[in-house]
């Protein structure tokens, strides 16, 4: 029983990263009808920015500022800076190709991703960096189930972020513009809502979220690597499809589902078969629900 509960905690933590990153895919898809394949690498760049800011702030303020305050400052500054990375990707990679065939636009994302990876390697070199712990890890033992405060923080912070995004999209004017754009990207610009504002904004929000996920990731898995975004990015992309293209709620749920499947498969099978079984399950789900959980029927007419 306790192994079961322990794995639920593990899966909630691991699924949080998939959920937050897959939302970035889903939002961009909603607005531009294409997947931003650079998103995994935006996550990586966000993590490195977070690492830089965290190191800087810890060196400057750790003497007289409590840890949680530095943590919040790191999150806010990193989000701000990382959102520009998102805007950069949109302006440089996607805007010039907006009228181009979809496949070309999809490829730009991959290329920008490779540029980020190799650029990082050239600028920072081959050395692996260790993300400084912003919060001292404390382990609690509830009758054989081990929970650290970092785990709790990751799960809670991810849920808060997703709730905030949900409110933003449902309650604000900007959110309404985003929803309208995903409803009809040809008619809405005629109503005076410029795609040149909404698209970069969507990228910026996605990048901001990914960078916070990166900071949290750095707390749980503190070894930074220029290629850290690839595998996570692809799996989050799977979650975005599984959740239903363009559905933010669906992406988040599918992210957690992916985390649960990946954690629970090794519980019953040899861990060697983990990915094989996990992704076979997803294949089966997609066979029965080809549009994912919340995918809209009209998305079959869309261009990708």
């Amino acid at each position, binding site marked *: 029983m306790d192994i079961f509960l322990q794995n639920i905690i593990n899966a909630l933590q691991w699924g949080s990263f998939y959920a937050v990153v897959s939302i970035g895919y889903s939002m961009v898809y909603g607005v531009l009808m294409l997947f931003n394949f650079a998103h995994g690498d935006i996550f990586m760049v966000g993590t490195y920015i977070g690492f830089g800011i965290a190191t800087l702030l810890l060196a400057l303020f750790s003497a007289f500022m409590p840890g949680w305050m530095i943590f919040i400052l790191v999150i806010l500054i990193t989000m701000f800076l990382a959102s520009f990375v998102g805007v950069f990707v949109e302006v440089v990679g996607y805007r010039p190709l907006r009228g181009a065939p979809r496949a070309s636009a999809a490829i730009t994302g991959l290329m920008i991703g490779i540029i980020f990876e190799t650029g990082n390697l050239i600028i920072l070199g081959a050395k*692996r960096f260790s993300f400084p712990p912003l919060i001292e890890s404390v382990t609690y033992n509830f009758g054989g189930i081990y929970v650290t405060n970092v785990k709790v923080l990751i799960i809670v912070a991810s849920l808060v972020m997703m709730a905030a995004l949900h409110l933003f999209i449902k309650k604000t004017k900007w959110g309404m513009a985003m929803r309208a754009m995903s409803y009809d990207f040809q008619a809405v610009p005629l109503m005076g809502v410029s795609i040149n504002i909404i698209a970069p904004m969507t990228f910026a929000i996605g990048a901001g979220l990914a960078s916070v996920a990166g900071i949290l990731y750095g707390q749980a*898995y503190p070894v930074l690597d220029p290629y850290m975004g690839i595998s996570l990015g692809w799996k989050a992309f799977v979650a975005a499809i599984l959740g239903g293209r363009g559905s933010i709620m669906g992406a988040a749920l599918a992210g957690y589902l992916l985390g649960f499947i990946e954690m629970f498969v090794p519980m019953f099978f040899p*861990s060697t078969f983990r990915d094989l079984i996990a992704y076979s399950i997803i294949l089966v789900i997609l066979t029965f629900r080809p549009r994912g959980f919340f995918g809209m029927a009209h998305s079959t007419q869309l261009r990708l």
Partner: protein
Amino acid sequence: MKKLVYLVMAACVVTFCFSSNGWTQRKTTIKVGINAPMTGDIPKVGEGTKYAAEMWLDDVNKAGGIEVGGKKYPVELVLEDNESKAESAVKANTKMITQDDVMIIIGPQSSKQAIPAGDVANNYETPMISPWSTNPATTADRPFVFRGCFLDPFQGPVLANFITEEFGFKKAAVLYDVASDYPKGLAEFFKAAWEEKHGAGSVVAYESFTTKDTDFSSQLTKIIKSGADFLFTPQYYNEVALIVNQAKDLGWKGPVVGSDSWGSAETVELCGEACFGQFFSTHYAAAGAKGATKEFIDRYNASYGYVPDDVGALTWDALRLAQAAIEGAGELTGDIKKDRTAVRDALARVENFEGITGKMTFTEEGDPNKCAVIVKISDKGEYEFYKSICP
């Protein structure tokens, strides 16, 4: 279209310039190829390889080159990045052998790259020394491939014996990367050795993951609940840091034991205090070294600002072995094929070579007989010599 034609022409001219440049020098310089992971999963290993090679080249240049048959030949290094990928290592070897006309190749370091790359070297009849690859398949049935370190079938039982004697443990847990030759091979050898000692079923958890995974909590939960006395994880430094810390967070109290892949200078830096007090088997221990070993460590530390890990030391030995073999080849004919075979034969004849990681004589397979060292990570994060175990 015209532009494209010009572009292609320009590219051809550039390529030709570079290749002809290599061609004119072919007869006068000895080229030594280095196949190292400069980028990818374990760049620190590539860096150590490169630094050791630079130091060696410096020595050779100071001596005016390598002397063969009474004539001094200048030496040139050809460094190719294998990106820590098997296919890139194969490409790098093919390029160095067919285009750069290297005399001998040093590397690749990890078995994952050394096994396929060794095949290329053997097919082209070019001698290759992998300083760090401990998997038997690297040199098996390949007369042109050698290595500078002991083998996993030796390392597995060494660790099993050490743990049994030191701690008196009965139940083992293993966590390894199933997608990489070195951890997979070593995990199997360790399991076999442990079960031979303690009976079938004494490895109570045998869990795996794939390269690039960062979350091991599911496997570790299983391991912890299995009631194992200790965890053996033959992983590289970036994974060690994550595994050891996650195990601690999940309530693991027992020791974590590692293999020579832990020996990188970055293991402790990334892993922090969770790794203090853990043991691993390796090729040499920097702390408390004497003689030529100490001289090498001091020089390396002075030049690059950190104590070299086992990769650096083994690469140094491999390069000096290569030098000894080239010197022992008699004379260079200028026909690269004949010279390579002569160097290979000289390498196979090397006896009691005094390396900084121990004495070496090659067996028929091209593997040296060497001792293993058990290292304890001290409370200051230094690698302390604990015990030496010889075959």
